[in-house]
């Protein structure tokens, strides 16, 4: 087996001083599917950016097809036959599919103008030869996620890529769509392509990969045939210690309902009916997990619950009091905490210090301020204590958030939300993109909050997380709640998958009737 890509001693230092890659060595063999796994912040993305020419290493050598190469930019990488499909799809929304496909390699006539005829020819023949059917003349913004990803793959193939890098491609797909993707990848491999596959979903890695490289803390730890390592072993190599995959203990006692959502509807500005008649409740002492592929209304639901978006109709009640369409501050005053989906965009102010981030929900209360004057001494002490209690790795309370790693930033968010003495916690994708160690800590904190009688509403696209932590599970699809289950050993990924894809509805899934023990209307 010849080696198509060889990385030797790659070192990368970012301008802010962070050393992302500390001497990485990897050999990728031609015609294999090679997975790269590691916690977030381990350095996988940086490594891929170096291969694709988006970053240059400070030290190290890259050999492609046996020859030493210096990949100065993406154009050179593409010319060499390297293609990359990023985690966040990279298409220009107002341009058509065809325009997106030929962008950068536009055929011209009379040296100056776009040759529309050649564009259609080129894109149509690519569709045929690779077997991907995409609507060439539609604007990208009007297409669903699965189609967009196929366009991305076609974009890479049309440029004659032989080495294809996929960065967390399944994070936006359901289990069934992932199968379709894997089928395509196997077909591409059969056609002679080499695939590098970045993922933190170890099940998938075991499913599709031939070889696995584990990266931890900027260094490559091991490269091995995928079938020689178990998921558990891979996880341990990623983290460097024992970790648990077990479901957490059932709650000892569950109280009365704290949050009640009744017939919630939301229609957005483009007149799309995002949430359709959502009703559920969260009781004290339980963790209600809402499972669903991202983009089925969860984001809007959480925004409505926390006052960041107005509902179109319906009611939300806390302890019997209606809180529908109250402001974020009023809702927080009702003892609701919110761990947001996108911590960098909503959860923190990156350039501010930790203490300025901690006080955003309490600065106007005594003793944080008096008569509108902030008590920085008290704020500093308060923050220092939280840093200690939550094990946040930071120099001081005045350290800016930008100096912290992803996991520690999430700890700041969680520290703030949990220290606000809430009765309801809304956690939206709380462990997305953080290291396993921090993820464990977040789960432990949610469990501890639950055991103290707090109601927890967990929204997550990570089925492992839901299965591990939730007391009850809701599945949301296309704005509707399509299933509700008590969480026990019989609930698995395979069982929830069809509901998440809308293949099974409440009526059809009657053989495994959800909530058979209660007469509640779902």
């Amino acid at each position, binding site marked *: 087996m010849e080696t198509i890509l060889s990385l030797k001693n790659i070192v990368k230092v970012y301008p802010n001083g962070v050393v992302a890659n500390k001497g990485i060595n990897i050999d990728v063999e031609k015609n294999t599917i090679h997975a790269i796994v590691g916690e977030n912040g381990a350095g996988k993305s940086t490594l891929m950016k170096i291969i694709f020419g988006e970053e240059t290493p400070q030290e190290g050598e890259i050999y492609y097809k046996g020859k030493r190469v210096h990949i100065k930019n*993406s154009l050179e990488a593409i010319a060499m036959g390297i293609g990359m499909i990023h985690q966040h799809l*990279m298409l*220009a929304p107002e341009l058509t599919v065809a325009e997106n496909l030929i962008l950068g390699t536009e055929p011209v006539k009379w040296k100056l103008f776009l040759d529309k005829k050649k564009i259609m020819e080129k894109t149509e023949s690519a569709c045929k030869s690779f077997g991907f059917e995409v609507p060439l003349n539609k604007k990208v913004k009007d297409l669903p996620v699965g189609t967009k990803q196929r366009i991305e793959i076609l974009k890479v193939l049309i440029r004659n890529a032989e080495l294809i890098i996929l960065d967390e491609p399944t994070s936006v797909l359901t289990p069934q769509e992932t199968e379709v993707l894997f089928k395509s990848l196997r077909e591409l491999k059969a056609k002679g392509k080499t695939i590098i596959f970045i993922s933190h979903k170890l099940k998938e890695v075991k499913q599709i990969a031939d070889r696995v490289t584990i990266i931890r803390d900027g260094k490559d730890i091991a490269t091995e045939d995928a079938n020689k390592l178990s998921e558990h072993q891979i996880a341990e190599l990623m983290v460097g210690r024992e970790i648990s995959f077990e479901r957490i203990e059932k709650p000892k006692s569950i109280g009365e309902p704290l949050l009640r959502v009744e017939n919630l509807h939301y229609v957005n500005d483009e007149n799309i*009916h995002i949430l359709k008649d959502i009703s559920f409740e969260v009781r004290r002492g339980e963790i209600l997990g809402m499972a669903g592929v991202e983009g089925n209304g969860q984001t809007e639901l959480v925004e409505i619950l926390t006052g960041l978006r107005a509902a179109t109709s319906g009611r939300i009640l806390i302890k019997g009091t209606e809180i529908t369409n109250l402001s974020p501050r009023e809702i927080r005053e009702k003892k609701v905490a919110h761990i947001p989906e996108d911590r960098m965009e909503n959860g923190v102010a990156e350039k501010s210090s930790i203490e300025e981030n901690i006080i955003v929900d309490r600065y106007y209360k005594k003793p944080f301020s008096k008569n509108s004057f902030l008590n920085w001494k008290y704020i500093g002490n308060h923050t220092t204590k939280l840093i200690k209690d939550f094990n946040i790795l930071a120099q001081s309370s005045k350290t800016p958030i930008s100096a912290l790693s992803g996991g520690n930033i999430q700890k700041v968010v969680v520290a703030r939300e949990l220290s606000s003495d809430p009765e309801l916690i809304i956690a939206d994708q709380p462990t997305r993109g953080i290291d396993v160690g921090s993820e464990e800590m977040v789960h432990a904190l949610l469990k501890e909050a639950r055991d103290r009688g707090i109601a927890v509403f967990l929204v997550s696209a990570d089925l492992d997380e839901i299965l591990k932590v939730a007391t009850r599970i809701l599945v949301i699809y296309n704005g509707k709640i399509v299933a509700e289950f008590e969480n026990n050993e019989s609930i698995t990924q395979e069982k929830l998958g069809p509901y998440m894809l809308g293949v099974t509805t409440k009526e059809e899934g009657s053989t495994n009737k959800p909530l058979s023990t209660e007469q509640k209307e779902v």
Partner: protein
Amino acid sequence: MNPILKSILSPKFVFATIRVMTPILYPAIGVAITALAGSINIALEGIMLMSAFTGVMVSAYTGNLLISLIAGVAAGVGMGAILGYFHLKLKADIIIAAIALNMFASGITIFLLYLFAHDKGTSSSLKSLVFPSFQIPILKDIPILGPMLSGHNILTYFVFVAVIAFYYLIYKTPLGLRIRAVGQNPDAAKSVGINVDRIRFYSLLLSGFFGSFGGLYLAMGYVSWFSRDMTAGRGFIAIAASSLGNNLPLGTFLGSLLFGLVNAFAIFIAPLKIPSEFIQSIPYVTTVIVLAIYSINKSRKVKKEIE
């Protein structure tokens, strides 16, 4: 009132509108191109000042219209290049850098005006040239249309060519496609190997190119001298004009036409003996009102009834 109403409804009014629209449409095209590329250029005010001044000075000293044209355009493109360098290479905030450039242009043109014309107000002591106006044969004799469309300055006729060129550039050339891609999703462009900074730099150069014609027109067509800060905010009204039109060719044209109409209107109601300060404030008040209405419309959406 009657004679004023008559004059507004006459072909002379349309003629004036087209004339007045010219120094708004040129910079509006410039703003639009950079806005489409995602790096909006608000320094068209300074760009027009520099090209106006350069054109006047070079024409006074060389007596050659073509050389003056080239010099004026070079000045505009040069300003665009400086803005591009500071924003793209040195990572300056594009708004602040543009404000600095506008300030620079205002200061340096008055400074040099004094040095060369010994007057801080206008350059009228110098013999600068003017771009010619043309009566178009046959067209000029057609009733109504003739007086509207014939007799304009060559730079006014050229602005229509410029808009069409803008249309072709954006929709029919690879550069235009890349500009739009870069503006919509720079990461997407990067992923196919497009150098986002280079495309934005080109857009800034192009904005300097188109904007410079506006400046040249002001000092060598609209009037025949350079006076301090003669752009009078047109570079900023151009921003309003192009954003009204969503930065696309047809919309930018219509937006500029609107402000041309308002300016012409202000000129035509002068005989009403309304204080000049009021009349001069009309274009700016209108811009505020129009932009406000535009944003109100944009943020209001009709909600469908829920089943």
